[in-house]
């Protein structure tokens, strides 16, 4: 087990492309940290730099306080599980798992004993004589994990290990990996592009985008206190609704959207340092926090309104898409943009496409982001 320390780590390729820049991240001994971000954000590169498979061009990486920038991968004592498992096709499951142990001077009997022990943990005992080609996807995944566990490395690095599995198996293996970490307690860094995976697995989650670390925190923190628009949009599904809004003080503070305005309490405004009348913000509200109401009701007066375009029922909930808003691009390539808000409602509500609805939210569920740089201005 080990603690891992990234200090200002960056990667610039020979042609000048910057894959990673200025990443500072400490991983404590025994911690399970997930690196998450859209594809191409540099998360795999970061992991490969830690493993020694890519050169570190800026900053340094420390394992247990020792700078490993120039240490050969085999001397870093970390184990990696690759996206496509990297099992040796010509070796049996046993030989695959024994491979790391055979590189040292371990006696044969000890190797066999250790492999059997790990195979037992992973329920692979009866498959030890088979070859990877004859295993199911989940079994291959386990062999890959077994090969990583078997030599008891300082850290496990997992590079999108679940992305080749079908949805059901992915959920199961997710649970098994979490259980293994709980049992073994080895420092683990897990890379994924899937924020659900990140949120369910990570004790801490580090969000990357464009090669930069955006925010590190517990899943709860990331969800409830996103540090910027990107994190807000990336974490959570469906994504947070991000709307262009103007703060005005006309008989009390209100946030003005395209088709109406929503009142804001003075507490919220005071929480935003230097907030002034006429200032532009990006207002973020999660789909489950949106309140849809009948526009004819008196309390709906002045509220922004839109037309319901589409309803997706996913029992016991439904997603209601409301047209008529100006959404802001969060920077996540996969996030929705355009003019439709998403609201998450209990499936029983009587709304149908074509209805006009008033949209509002509770103050405590509002996230405000700077219109200039996208950073959060409220907690």
């Amino acid at each position, binding site marked *: 087990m080990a603690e891992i320390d990234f200090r200002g780590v960056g990667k610039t390729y020979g042609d000048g492309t910057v894959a990673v820049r200025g990443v500072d991240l400490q991983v404590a001994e025994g911690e399970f940290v997930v690196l998450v971000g859209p594809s191409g954000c540099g998360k795999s590169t970061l992991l490969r730099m830690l*493993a*020694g*498979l890519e050169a570190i061009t800026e900053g340094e990486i420390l394992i247990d306080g020792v700078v490993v920038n120039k240490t*050969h*991968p*085999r001397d*870093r004592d*970390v*184990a*990696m599980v*690759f*996206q*496509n498992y*990297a*099992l*040796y*096709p*010509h*070796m049996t499951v046993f030989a695959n798992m024994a*491979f*790391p142990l055979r*590189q*040292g001077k371990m006696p044969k009997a000890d190797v066999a004993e250790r492999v059997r022990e790990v195979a037992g943990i992973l329920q692979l005992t009866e498959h030890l004589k088979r070859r990877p080609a004859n295993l199911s996807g989940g079994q291959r995944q386990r062999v890959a994990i077994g*090969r990583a566990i078997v*030599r008891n490395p300082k850290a496990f690095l997992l590079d999108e290990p679940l992305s080749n599995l079908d949805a059901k198996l992915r959920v199961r293996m997710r649970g098994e990996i979490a259980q293994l970490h709980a049992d073994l307690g080895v420092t683990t860094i897990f890379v994924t592009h899937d924020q659900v995976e990140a949120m369910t697995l990570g004790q801490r989650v580090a969000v990357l985008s464009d090669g930069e670390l955006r925010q590190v925190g517990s899943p709860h923190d990331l969800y409830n206190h996103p540090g910027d628009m990107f994190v807000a949009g990336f974490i959570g599904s469906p994504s947070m609704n991000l709307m262009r809004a103007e703060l005005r003080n006309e008989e009390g503070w209100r946030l003005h959207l395209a088709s109406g305005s929503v009142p804001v309490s003075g507490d919220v405004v005071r929480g935003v340092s230097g907030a002034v009348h006429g200032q532009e913000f990006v207002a973020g509200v999660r789909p489950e926090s949106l309140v849809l109401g009948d526009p004819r009701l008196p309390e709906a007066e002045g509220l922004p309104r839109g037309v319901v375009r589409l309803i997706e029922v996913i029992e016991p909930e439904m997603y209601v898409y409301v047209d008529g808003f100006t959404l802001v691009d969060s920077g996540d390539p996969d996030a929705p943009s355009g003019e439709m808000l998403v609201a998450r409602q209990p499936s029983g509500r009587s709304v149908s496409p074509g209805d006009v609805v008033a949209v509002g939210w509770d103050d405590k569920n509002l996230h405000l982001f700077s219109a200039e740089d996208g950073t959060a201005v409220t907690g």
Partner: protein
Amino acid sequence: MFDIRSPWAKSSLSLLAVGIAVVVLLPIAWIGALSLKTGREVYKQSFLPDQWTPGNYVEAWREFGLGGYFVNSVFVTALSVALTVLVGLLAAHAFTWLKFPGSEWVFTALLLGIMIPPAALVLPLLIEARQLGLYDELYGLSLVYVAFGLPISILVFRGFFQGLPGDLVESARLDGAREWKILWRVVVPMARPAIVTVTILLMLANWNDFILALVLLRDSDTYTLPVGISQFIGQYRTPHELIAAASLIGSVPVFLLYLILERRFQQGVAQGALKG
């Protein structure tokens, strides 16, 4: 591939195929028959021998000293093929997974070797072989074969390696394996088809080579089969039936190998030729 349905077309195509096969095979069959005739029968107008004389093979073997040539050929072919495959695997591994500044440049330079016909270099090779003590030495000839076999071998190996998942090599590195062990334990077992292809190509080329062996070997003790047998054509009395027997003996090893590995042989030659 083409779905021929009409029985008439089918049988005429079959006839054509068999006809061509017979025409191609006839000269070899005639030589085969000749090699079994007695010396007196050689000039007779018959295809098959009146008196079958398989003893010609024994006599050719003894008379021409084919045993020695045979051993030399086997030695040179085995040594050169083994060395080329070994050295080529090392280089291809580095060109694929241990790149160093300038490695692409070196690779391209090596590939230029494919373009140089060995026949054109026999004069300088002879001069050099004499200087280096490689002249009239079987290992010297083998080394020259290695030189001419390496470029195509490295090209085929590297092409194959690039199609292998690089994760396996990286994973082995993380697992603590040394580079030579990665090559032998991880890469080579997966690269068997490429190794077979290259081995077949090299065996053919080196077993069949004539001009390099002719120039670089002087003493009949070191002759390979092609050179050894070719020496008899200018002699005062050329025993035709024995030359025929000797020619067939020289062709047997390749032929046997072909029988065992027919499809692989054809695929190997096709892959090697189309890639190189």
